[in-house]
């Protein structure tokens, strides 16, 4: 098998290139233990097994950022047979910096001169023969749109892999300044004569070791100490001191500038540019999109459009999937289960099938989300969002890129969590994701509607509005507290990002990314979501065969209500019992309340006697429903109806979900209680802040792992409890 690793700067069309090469074979996953996306493909080409690995887009190979460490560790430890270094041919000077760093690793390598069509459009000229000679590397001009370069690149890569198969370390000329080359040489000689270093030099090339030691590369020095027990390298210390003194700069900078110097030297002899630059078009667009006045305006329009399309566009499909699973699949599964024990029947139909439905209803939303995420990222606008919103988001200790997740949170917490992928560093991703459940999502609206209808009458609007506000406030406070913990503390206190050239991404690239990521959601998050849903089903079903009042959950409510006494709502066990089911989805509280308050086990599934329909009739029905959903989705997308997404359901809709008498029954919960409003509001605060639904939990688990999962459970148990207690206890004094 030939292992080919892709390395390159961000925004150089690396994904498009690898897409063009691997096509549908590309799979997406994560690098072990971190939330950096890993793309990989296995395929056969000309009778050979090929493995392509997409390394994270990086500017450098320092020991400081996760992506950079992944890249360099992969190259040093997994020994790819050849590295394809993808460079933006229209911006060689900066792109070659990474090339030089990669060269120092001494592995077989080839350059993909990508975006070569743009290079030609700019009327730039490159003396490829000379360029090749100076760099010591072969190269192939590519553009993802033209297949020929891609095939040639693959062919050449395989050839190089074979040629260099038995070479352990390749010695590339870097071409540092003479003095520096001299220092490297001195250190090299001293290392070669140092017995401590003989095992090190078996693993790494002497050039690499010498440069890393001279550069005082933290991670490499640590490794020397831990793995080889080498701590003090006197020769190097003297050399470093001299170099720093001579250049009046720290050693890292000296080396970086020497690399840039070498690049300048090569390009001066080989590259002819014109008056045009790759930023000409981008500059014109930025004049509008980053304009003092039009910038914020277009930003708001774009955000509204994105928000509206994601949620209004996916809505009809979500309903369709829901119906498809419940009515169509459900019907036939129920048919098969006829005659089995009631618990088994309920396990399969309500527990497992219901759980599968719970996972799959989110698929349309994921598709829409990932489509827009890819579009915003690949087009170059996502970085502009960060640029425009940085000042506001900085106020709450995050950087501009955290804006999108927060906004999406008002629609649904699940896409909000996934959209934190666009942030740069892990602690910021964690913190932002952890804050998103406090952006009150759409599923909480029915609960608000039920309680405001029962207790607040005309003040309903004000109550709901205040809940949104308090959620945001709580998020900000939580952020300030958690930032102090190492797990959430971002080392990266600055916003230093590239604002890449605007590009129109190909539909193929966007769709590829969308479907791969969606599939990964089904596989990774789906399992855990299904698991929790089945457990919740069990807690609501047993031990009394579906009688919720006396189920484990009912018992939980009755037993633990006393703990919730200080929150105000805990004097009624029903409200407490509704908390675990709220994990299924927040709106479930409405149906659950209907069940327990009205002593009616089945009010929201009013069993209408369905007409006998045949399988083919059902299938036709589902297909036509899908067509309708498609039409509605289009209508929804063009409606740009954002306000509608925030409209609480009407009383009729609440009654439909919870049963005709649910509002009256709820009023009776605290009838004649002068503190009724206070208790109800305290409960709404609790529902707003309590553990997000299982799908969100699944998303936390998929993106951040078990520890984060635990932190979320803990945070969103402690926070709502104390908020409700404080609210109620203080409220009581003034009421």
């Amino acid at each position: 098998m030939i292992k080919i690793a892709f390395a390159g700067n961000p925004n150089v069309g690396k994904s498009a290139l690898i897409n063009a090469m691997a096509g549908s074979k590309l799979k997406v996953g994560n690098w072990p233990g971190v939330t950096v996306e890993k793309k990989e493909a296995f395929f056969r080409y000309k009778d050979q097994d090929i493995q392509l690995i997409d390394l994270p887009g990086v500017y450098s190979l320092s020991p400081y950022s996760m992506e950079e460490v992944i890249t360099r560790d992969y190259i040093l430890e997994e020994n790819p047979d050849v590295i394809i270094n993808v460079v933006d041919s229209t911006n060689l000077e900066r792109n070659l910096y990474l090339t030089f760093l990669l060269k120092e690793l001494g592995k077989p390598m080839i350059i993909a001169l990508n975006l070569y069509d743009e290079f030609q459009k700019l009327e730039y000229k490159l003396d490829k023969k000379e360029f090749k000679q100076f760099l010591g590397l072969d190269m192939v001009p590519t553009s993802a749109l033209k297949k020929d370069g891609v095939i040639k690149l693959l062919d050449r890569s395989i050839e190089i892999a074979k040629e260099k198969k038995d070479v352990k370390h390749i010695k590339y000329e870097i071409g540092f300044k003479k003095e520096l080359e001299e220092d490297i040489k001195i250190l090299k000689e001293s290392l070669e004569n140092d017995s401590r270093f003989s095992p090190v030099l078996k693993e790494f090339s002497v050039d690499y070791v010498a440069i890393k030691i001279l550069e005082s590369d933290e991670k490499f020095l640590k490794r020397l100490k831990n793995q080889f027990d080498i701590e003090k390298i006197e020769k190097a210390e003297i050399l470093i001191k001299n170099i720093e003194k001579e250049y009046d700069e720290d050693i890292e900078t000296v080396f970086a500038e020497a690399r840039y110097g070498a690049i300048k030297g090569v390009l001066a002899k080989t590259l002819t540019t014109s008056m045009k630059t790759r930023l000409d078009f981008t500059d014109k667009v930025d004049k509008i999109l980053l304009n003092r006045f039009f910038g914020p305006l277009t930003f708001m329009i774009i955000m509204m459009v994105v928000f509206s399309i994601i949620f209004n566009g996916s809505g009809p499909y979500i309903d369709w999937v829901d119906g498809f699973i419940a009515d169509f699949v459900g019907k036939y599964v129920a048919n098969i289960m006829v005659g089995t024990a009631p618990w088994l029947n309920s396990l399969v139909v309500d527990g497992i099938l219901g759980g599968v439905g719970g996972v799959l209803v989110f698929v349309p939303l994921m598709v829409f989300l990932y489509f827009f995420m890819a579009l915003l990222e690949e087009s170059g606008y996502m970085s502009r969002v960060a640029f425009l919103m940085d000042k506001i988001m900085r106020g709450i200790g995050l950087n501009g890129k955290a804006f999108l997740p927060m906004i999406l949170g008002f629609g649904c917490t699940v896409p909000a969590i996934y959209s934190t992928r666009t942030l740069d560093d892990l602690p910021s991703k964690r913190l932002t994701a952890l804050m998103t459940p406090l952006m009150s999502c759409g599923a909480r609206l029915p609960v608000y509607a039920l309680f405001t209808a029962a207790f607040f009458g005309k003040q309903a609007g004000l109550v709901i509005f205040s809940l949104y506000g308090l959620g945001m406030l709580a998020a900000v406070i939580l952020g300030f507290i958690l930032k102090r913990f190492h797990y959430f503390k971002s080392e990266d206190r600055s916003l230093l990002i590239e604002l890449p050239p605007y590009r129109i991404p190909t539909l193929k690239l966007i769709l590829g990314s969308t479907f791969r990521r969606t599939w990964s959601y089904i596989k990774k998050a789906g399992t855990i979501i299904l698991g929790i849903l089945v457990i919740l089903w069990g807690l609501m079903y047993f031990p009394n065969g579906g009688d919720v009042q006396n189920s484990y959950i009912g018992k939980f409510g009755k037993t633990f209500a006393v703990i919730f006494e200080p929150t105000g709502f805990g004097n009624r066990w029903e409200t407490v019992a509704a908390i675990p089911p709220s994990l299924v989805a927040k709106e479930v509280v409405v149906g659950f309340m209907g069940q327990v308050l009205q002593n009616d086990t089945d009010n929201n599934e009013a069993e209408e006697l369905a007409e006998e329909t045949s399988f083919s009739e059902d299938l036709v029905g589902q297909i036509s429903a899908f067509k309708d959903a498609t039409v509605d989705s289009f209508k929804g997308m063009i409606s740009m109806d954002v306000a509608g997404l925030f409209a609480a359901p009407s009383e009729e809709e609440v009654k439909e979900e919870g049963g005709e008498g649910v509002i009256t029954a709820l009023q009776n919960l605290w009838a004649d209680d002068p503190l009724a409003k206070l208790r109800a509001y305290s409960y709404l605060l609790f529902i707003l802040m309590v553990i997000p639904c299982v799908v969100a939990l699944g998303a936390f688990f998929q993106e951040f792992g078990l520890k984060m999962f635990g932190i979320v459970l803990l945070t969103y148990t402690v926070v709502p409890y104390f908020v409700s207690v404080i609210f109620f206890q203080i409220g009581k004094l003034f009421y």
Partner: protein
Amino acid sequence: MNLTELKRGEDATIVKIGKVGELKRRLIDLGVTAGEKIVFKRDAPLGDPQQYYIKGTSIAVRKEDAKNIEIKK
């Protein structure tokens, strides 16, 4: 003078990046090195961060960080 003293559309040559550390290294990775020409494009609509062009790359830097970059016209 430091980078934030540039007016819109003006360019200057970078002399030195002060304050050693993580940010300095990242600036260098993006091509911000001594001797290089840098152009100030614009402030963000809210006044901060700022957009600059350097080495054919458009970058966003916060003012507090740009202050550490010494330039000469």
